[in-house]
């Protein structure tokens, strides 16, 4: 048996991370010169393709050996799952022939977290031995071993207030980097003040409620678990209880999109207070108008915490001519205030803050309509207008 190191293009070599090559015996002249190389472009953390070269016999294109070239080079994922006799399926990809070399390019890019094994195997008819080990060579690529330092953390849990209503509808978690999804509920826990974990407090959906960048996750408290009226829920209690303290805990072993765990766990402790069944009433909002010829913030004080995402998305500012005013928005004071800074100076005049009716407070009450409609109340056929206005002047 001869040992042989796999190597790759000299020009890429200096940035290549260590890997291990194993070689098995070969006893026919056909395999004596074959080499397997993993091609890893500069700056990449995983190979782009793998090449088996110096394949004697390919230089006779008419031969049966040469005609069968597409099946000689295969790549497999190396994982414990295939320790038994069963052969894993080969990685999907395409082979190209060039001179005496076959290049395999995977259909989906190789991962920098997976061990791969490339096998070059001759068909039976071209070796003198039936022993599989004597007509196959392989090369294994192992991901870089250095541990990457955790880099991602939870930047905030909304609502930020320490006192939350018993009929709280949702949380938002924001992260400093894109996260990985699929099993999010395994990493999120709600504990009551006896340190008991609340069973299934959140709406667990197959399609998780991420934003496009996967840096914000929406958690809905299961509406079936929100306490209604005086009688407790049967079978399984409410998620939150007035008068008690709870902790929302996020595990640090939740991996980000690069496969690295969070920097640290995150915990939000809060007190639960009476439920909020009041619709939002923008007439009660306090508006502090900015001065003209400044880019000072317009401040709208809601008098209560509103939904973090909706308070920013559903309130827009228009001039008296109906022109939309471009600017940046920020929520302050535990999401009880919206601060709007225009991109251009305020001009003197009248303005409108237009608010969509589907705005929500922490309990999911909208403008003019609370989250729950009691069947015993007088339920008129509701006429939905889309928005409501609050006017203000810049003087």
């Amino acid at each position: 048996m001869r040992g042989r190191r796999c190597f790759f293009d000299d020009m890429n070599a200096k940035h290549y991370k260590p890997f291990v090559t194993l070689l098995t015996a070969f006893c026919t002249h056909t395999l004596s010169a074959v080499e397997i190389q993993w091609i890893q472009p500069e700056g990449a953390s995983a190979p782009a393709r793998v090449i088996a070269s110096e394949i004697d016999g390919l230089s006779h294109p008419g031969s049966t050996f040469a005609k069968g070239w597409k099946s000689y080079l295969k790549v497999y994922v190396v994982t414990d799952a295939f320790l038994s006799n069963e052969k894993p399926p080969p990685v999907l990809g395409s082979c190209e022939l060039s001179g005496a070399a076959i290049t395999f390019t995977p259909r989906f890019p190789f991962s920098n977290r997976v061990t791969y094994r490339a096998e070059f195997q001759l068909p039976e008819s071209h070796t003198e031995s039936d022993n599989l080990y004597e007509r196959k060579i392989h090369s294994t690529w192992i991901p870089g071993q250095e541990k990457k330092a955790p880099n991602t953390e939870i930047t905030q849990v909304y609502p930020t207030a320490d006192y939350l209503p018993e009929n709280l509808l949702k949380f938002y978690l924001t992260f400093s980097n894109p996260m990985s999804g699929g099993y999010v509920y395994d990493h999120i826990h709600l504990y009551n003040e006896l340190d008991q974990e609340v069973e299934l407090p959140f709406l667990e959906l197959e399609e998780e409620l991420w934003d496009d960048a996967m840096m914000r996750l929406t958690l809905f408290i299961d509406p079936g678990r929100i306490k209604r009226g005086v009688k407790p829920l049967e079978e399984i209690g409410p998620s939150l209880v007035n008068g008690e303290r709870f902790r929302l805990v996020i595990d640090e072993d939740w991996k980000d999109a690069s496969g690295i765990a969070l920097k640290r766990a995150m915990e939000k402790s809060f007190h639960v207070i009476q439920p909020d069944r009041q619709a939002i009433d923008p007439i009660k909002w306090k508006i502090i108008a900015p001065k003209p010829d400044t880019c000072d913030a317009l401040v709208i004080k809601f008098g209560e915490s509103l939904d973090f995402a909706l308070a920013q998305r559903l309130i827009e500012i228009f001039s008296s001519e109906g022109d939309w005013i471009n600017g940046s928005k920020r929520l302050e004071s535990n999401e009880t205030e919206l601060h709007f800074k225009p991109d251009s100076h305020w001009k003197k005049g009248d303005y409108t803050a237009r608010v969509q009716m589907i705005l929500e407070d922490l309990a999911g009450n909208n403008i003019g309509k609370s989250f729950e409609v009691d069947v015993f109340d007088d339920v008129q056929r509701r006429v939905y207008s889309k928005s409501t206005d609050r006017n203000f002047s810049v003087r």
Partner: protein
Amino acid sequence: MTKGKPALRSAGSISFGPEGILFIADAKSASIHAIATGDTEASKASPVKLEAINTKIAGMLGTTADEILIKDIAVNPISKHTYLSVSRGRGPSAIPVIVRVEDKDKLIVLDFNHVENSTAILPDAPEDKLVGQGRRSSNKRLESITDIAFLDDRVLIAGLSNEEFASTLRGIPFPFKSVEKGTRVEIYHGAHGRFETKSPVRTFVPINIGTEPHLLAAYTCTPLVQIPLKSIEPDAQIIGKTIAELGNRNRPLDMIVYNKEDNVFLLMANSSRGIMKINAQSIESFDKIEKRVEGGQSAGLPYETINSWKGVVQLDQLDDQHAILLVRADNGSLDLVSRPLP
């Protein structure tokens, strides 16, 4: 439909239409893609037993089982082939992949580079039209699509926003033209004694009740609600008829409707009750539930629990006699198996 490559950014729920057309819910691009799979040769169902299908698919995609997610399964009623919608990767740049199972255990990863396809884009939330493109692009609002199904002449879509707590139920006529707005569906939760407008539809299934097409929709904390198809029009407010209240410790995962021995049954996979088999024959004459259901009990249609079917995470009907199931085994692997309908 035009020939080309659909702009598939994600693949969640899948469902078959006529003639081997596969509908794919793509929440990332807020659209539904219709793809002609070309899988139109009628055949009999083969029994399926693919252990650790997640590991096998991952291996073909060049990764490990913990790096893929199997989002949904659907059977082509013509060829009886099972399709899986898979996410290769679990981060924002995950790649959507559709896999077809042929014969007993052959896995084919479909190539959509050159297929007949068409796409329906779901409209933005109405309030997004208020301002220009610039603002809309900074929106983090996305709608998750919890289930889709094809019935008659349209694709039905149940959706839930990641911001406002509003669930939508839409019918998009196919072939795709323009997309209608969401439909507000009001239902009455039997166990809670109140109207509930807001719960998201978790899973639904088309069913004919008498001669009328309906949807049976399962909501969180499992009331089961019957909604006439013709009432799903834009901006309609419908009272769905609650026909079963299955207790509030549940997450309904998947449902199918099948006929057996002159009866119509509903088979529902849910998180804590296992598989429930419900006799749906009497839905037509069933009294709706309006009073409070005491003690967290179930009420409404009688059902039985199929105790031998444990760990089912996805299910679909394979043929008249069989279901296809994705089952999580004790060792954590996902197995795709066919079983006789109970």
